[in-house]
């Protein structure tokens, strides 16, 4: 079943089609959201909101582009918004402080992951979305170009500049 027919079936209220879409896309969406927000439960909530919002907006889907890419883009945006709202709460730091019996390398790894998430979230648009779609959602530049409606060369340029900015961010954090 192609994406257009799948979306039409879901709009018509077909629960089997909805189940098929969720089985196909929920794993990828959850992984991307976990990498953005850093917490599985919060990411699961974001994925659920994404599916609810996407199904409500499905009648407007015209079958142009991959349905999975469309969903990933919605999920990533929601995750970034959630990340921005929760920025004042150092959840990961609290987790690290509470786990005394963990080995030191795990703690350092968590610290590094936290730093990467913060640095990506601090990127300005459109670099942030490009980086997240490319490295957190694991879309190739062609898929990003299709999902965002951006020319492929523009995607590549933004990715390159985004990585450069990210490097500056991480270096500043380490220096600090």
């Amino acid at each position, binding site marked *: 079943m192609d994406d257009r027919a799948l979306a039409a079936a879901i709009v018509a*209220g077909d629960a089997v089609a909805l189940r098929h879409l969720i089985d196909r896309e929920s794993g990828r969406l*959850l992984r991307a959201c976990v990498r953005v927000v850093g917490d599985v439960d919060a990411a699961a909530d974001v994925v659920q909101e994404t599916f609810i919002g996407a199904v*409500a907006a499905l*009648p407007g889907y015209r079958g142009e582009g991959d349905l999975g890419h469309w969903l990933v883009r919605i999920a990533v945006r929601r995750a970034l918004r959630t990340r921005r709202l929760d920025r004042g709460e150092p959840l990961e730091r609290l987790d690290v402080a509470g786990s005394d019996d963990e080995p030191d390398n795990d703690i350092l790894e968590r610290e590094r992951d936290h730093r990467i998430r913060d640095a990506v979230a601090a990127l300005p648009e459109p670099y942030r979305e490009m980086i997240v779609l490319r490295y957190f959602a694991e879309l190739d530049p062609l898929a990003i170009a299709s999902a965002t409606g951006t020319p492929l060369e523009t995607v590549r340029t933004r990715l390159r500049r985004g990585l450069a900015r990210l490097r500056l961010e991480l270096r500043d954090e380490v220096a600090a």
Partner: protein
Amino acid sequence: MSRHGRERVDALDVERELVEYAARTSTDAPTGFADRLVAAVMATETSARRRRGLAWLPRWLTSPLAPVGTIGLRFGAAIALLLASALVAAAAVLPLAHRPPVDPPSTPGGSLPAFLTASPTPVAPRLDRPAATASVHETIDERPSASISPRPTHAGRRHVTDETPSPTSHPRGSSGDDEDDGHEDGGSGGSGNRGPGASEDDGDHGGDDGDGPDGTNRPSASPSDEEGSSGDGDEDHHDESGDRSGQDGR
């Protein structure tokens, strides 16, 4: 090395960091996660459809997702749905439309209600009292002088009306009902004819005349339709209908 080349070398390290981060945080969905998503989406969509009612219909009809071959089927289903809705609405209104017809009160003959036609007791004493009948004639004899006299000016008529307010005269808005005008004109005509010595019966006669000598009430032919909806026009109409009913009474 150019600036662009240095940018690429710097970016490569970060890229490796990001790839390693993605590998570390790669996680599987928790057990029952898909079931939870399906349940949440279905519950939300069902309640949303219930809230929206038929608002989804045009969107569904014009949805670009469905194959073209089903457009006719969809339109047929939509028309059937609308017809069913219209039938339900008609069934709700129909009992009101099938009320038994009510005879008009001014119809001559025996179609009047019994309590109106069977009134012999007031008639008999009236025959015994010539004075009352004479007062009626007096009132009628006085009418020509009133009608021959030059028509009062608009302001004058308004003044007269203001001095002798009829119980039926009332200020009206701009959206007066024509049928109400017809009935009230008859009543006010009777009160307009009522002279100083007039009895209560005179007023009743005037009111009946206002409905029309042939027993047909024609509110659409009353002047109030042509006078518009202003309050001045209504006041004029009270006086004129009173004159007309008086002449009819004669």
